[in-house]
């Protein structure tokens, strides 16, 4: 069992949990993720690692309630425990293997969308510890959805904010800010790291392709085992089939087939639009409803 040491509500339906998991904490690196199971009947849910402490043996996860299983997860309280907590899974961020001196000269622009701020944080923290302080664009639907702001400011240089409703920072999307920044200083940034909803990563990648700005994205696909066994997480990258869980989760954003990735991500999702409703979707929906 993996005890929940702390639980905080950090936004609408967004929760932060500090979990006692010494083996995961011991080996975790930026860019990696965990799989969490609530209890005996629970699903295996992949979640990004937001922070970790090797000495104290804990890992922080951030989760947004999006459905049945995440709801059951946040129903657990401090002092209670997840039945299973496995990781770290996936490849660490590529920059951790780069030459430290070269890395210090590198100018990154990080983009965090919504709860994508959670996996961005350990990357920025690691870079800050290694003398690199990237600029950061944070996007969210509105002010309330901006999370981890103080932590993020501490480990980045200039911070830009975009909200869809204009309740904080620029009214608009992260891509609007990115476009402006790059136009102001063409060629300034060497690399972009964008983590957030698929549609945001797709839009960023489309924009930076035109700018010739290398872009790394982190995919949150469907997964079961998370160790390369099931293939549910397969994505096409540069025309080749990759498993997000073992080959990723980070990939070159310009090579990812986002259309396919977004379609596959919705495979078990309840139908949200009436435009197409085939029997299969209906069946999945029914199965989920039945379970709920």
């Amino acid at each position, binding site marked *: 069992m993996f005890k929940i040491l702390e639980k905080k509500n950090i936004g609408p339906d967004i929760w932060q949990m500090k979990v006692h998991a010494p083996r995961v904490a011991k080996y975790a690196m930026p860019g990696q993720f965990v799989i969490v199971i609530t209890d005996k009947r629970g699903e295996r849910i992949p979640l990004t690692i937001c922070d970790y402490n090797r000495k104290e043996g804990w890992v922080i996860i951030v989760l947004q309630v999006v459905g049945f299983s995440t709801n059951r997860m946040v129903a657990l309280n401090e002092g209670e425990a997840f039945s299973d907590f*496995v990781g*770290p899974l996936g490849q660490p961020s590529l920059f951790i293997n780069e030459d430290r001196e070269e890395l210090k000269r590198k100018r990154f622009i990080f983009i965090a969308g919504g709860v994508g701020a959670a996996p961005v944080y350990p990357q920025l923290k690691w870079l800050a510890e290694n003398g690199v302080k990237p600029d950061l664009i944070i996007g969210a639907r509105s002010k309330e959805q901006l999370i981890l702001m103080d932590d993020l400011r501490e480990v980045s240089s200039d911070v830009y904010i975009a909200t869809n409703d204009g309740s904080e920072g620029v009214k608009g999307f992260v891509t609007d800010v990115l476009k402006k920044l790059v136009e102001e200083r063409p060629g300034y940034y060497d690399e972009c790291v964008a983590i957030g909803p698929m549609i945001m990563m797709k839009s960023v990648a489309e924009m930076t392709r035109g700018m010739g700005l290398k872009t790394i994205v982190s995919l949150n696909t469907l997964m079961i085992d998370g160790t*390369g066994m099931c293939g549910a997480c397969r994505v096409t990258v540069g025309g080749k089939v990759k498993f997000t869980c073992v080959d990723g989760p980070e990939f070159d954003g310009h090579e990812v087939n986002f259309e396919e990735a977004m379609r596959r991500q919705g495979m078990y999702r309840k139908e949200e639009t009436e435009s197409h409703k085939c029997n299969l979707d209906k069946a999945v929906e029914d199965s989920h409803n039945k379970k709920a």
Partner: protein
Amino acid sequence: MKLTARVPVREQDPEIRRNNFDEVSFGYNEEEAVEEASRCLNCKKPGCVTNCPVSIDIPGFVMQVKERNFKEAASVIFKSSVLPAVCGRVCPQETQCEGKCILGVKGEAVAIGKLERFIGDRARENNFSIPVDSKPNGFRVAVVGSGPAGLTCAGELASMGYEVTIFEALHKAGGVLEYGIPEFRLPKEKVVKYEVENVRRMGVKIITNAVIGKAGNIDSLLTDEGFDAVFVGTGAGLPQFMNIPGENLNGVLSANEFLTRINLMKAYDDDFDTPVRTGQRVAVVGGGNVAMDAARAAIRLGAEVSVIYRRSAEELPARAEEVHHAREEGINFQLLTNPVEVLGNESGWVTAVKCVKMELGEPDDSGRRRPVVIKGSEFTIPTDTVIMSLGTSPNPLIAGTTPNLETDRKGCVKALDENGTTTREGIFAAGDVVTGSATVILAMGAARKAAKAIDDYIKSKHFGK
């Protein structure tokens, strides 16, 4: 009559069982088991034993069954296997022990598998424990993977006095017994969990949720964690796909994914959260035991199921019993058929598999006749789900994180001898990770030899020869 025909085993009616996940075979009751055991001729040179990968003293335990000494029968089996209730259910006995039974020449072989299952179940029902005679010897061995190979190696070493820790990546121990083989062939709570617990009761520690290669690696086990040797029994868990167009459409999945959802995550049971979808029609591509498991699981979820296989019925690699059960349950076999493309609708969901008809040509390297495409034979099979069951290969995680642990071209860890010696000192490997996907019992046989080799290695290192 007694000599030629075996005592038939009672099974669930196909029309009923295709609607549930309960075990198909009821197994023998005491009277049936004793009657069947009395058919054994107790041969002087028993072929069954030499053909058993773990060399169980088969006539020895069968004679005890005949005399109704069930505890003694269990003791005989436990000397060679810690998983009798598992093996009695899933071993291909017809090609192993039963294949060499002298009664099989003129009639039916003794139903050794059914008798082993009977004793395995008896042992569980009566808590016959597996004896551990040796005193702790102070040496520690790490076993990576808790499938048939890992459990066997751990059990052997524990009974020799080693302190053994198994590291399992998933949240439940058992490996393929948990995630791969369905409930209707191998009950999880009743059989698998109990026999895994038996290994624990022998003193073996099992740590789940521990992905070696990510949370530590083989070298950190040998150095930081101070193990004297490591056994790698990580199986063959990496699914293969066909690399045909449309394979990433929604509704195409590996047999591993489908079976893991159903077996490990219990998606068929409304009390569990993991979903599974089949739609109305399911096409399973492949003809092995895993394909039969996937097809038979799909039919239990209410789908119409076709198995698509590129050779003919004769070449089906699945056990005859599995094919027979699948046919009884109403699975349709599209033989001499090979998919060339998966077709989908505008929303990206599968609608059909485009196939070609095949004919058998000259034998290939495997000795089986090579399937050849019949020109102009393209046709489509409408379907909502496609399950790819084309075999699996070892997960590259261990080899990729263990310097100088050599693998072959298929990613299998190279064993330098039949004892599982690898290219790295102190690291041994056996089972599917060495051979590629094979059977539970072959993995167990190889793991037993590796356990002996680990014992020799540690003793010669510390005490000299």
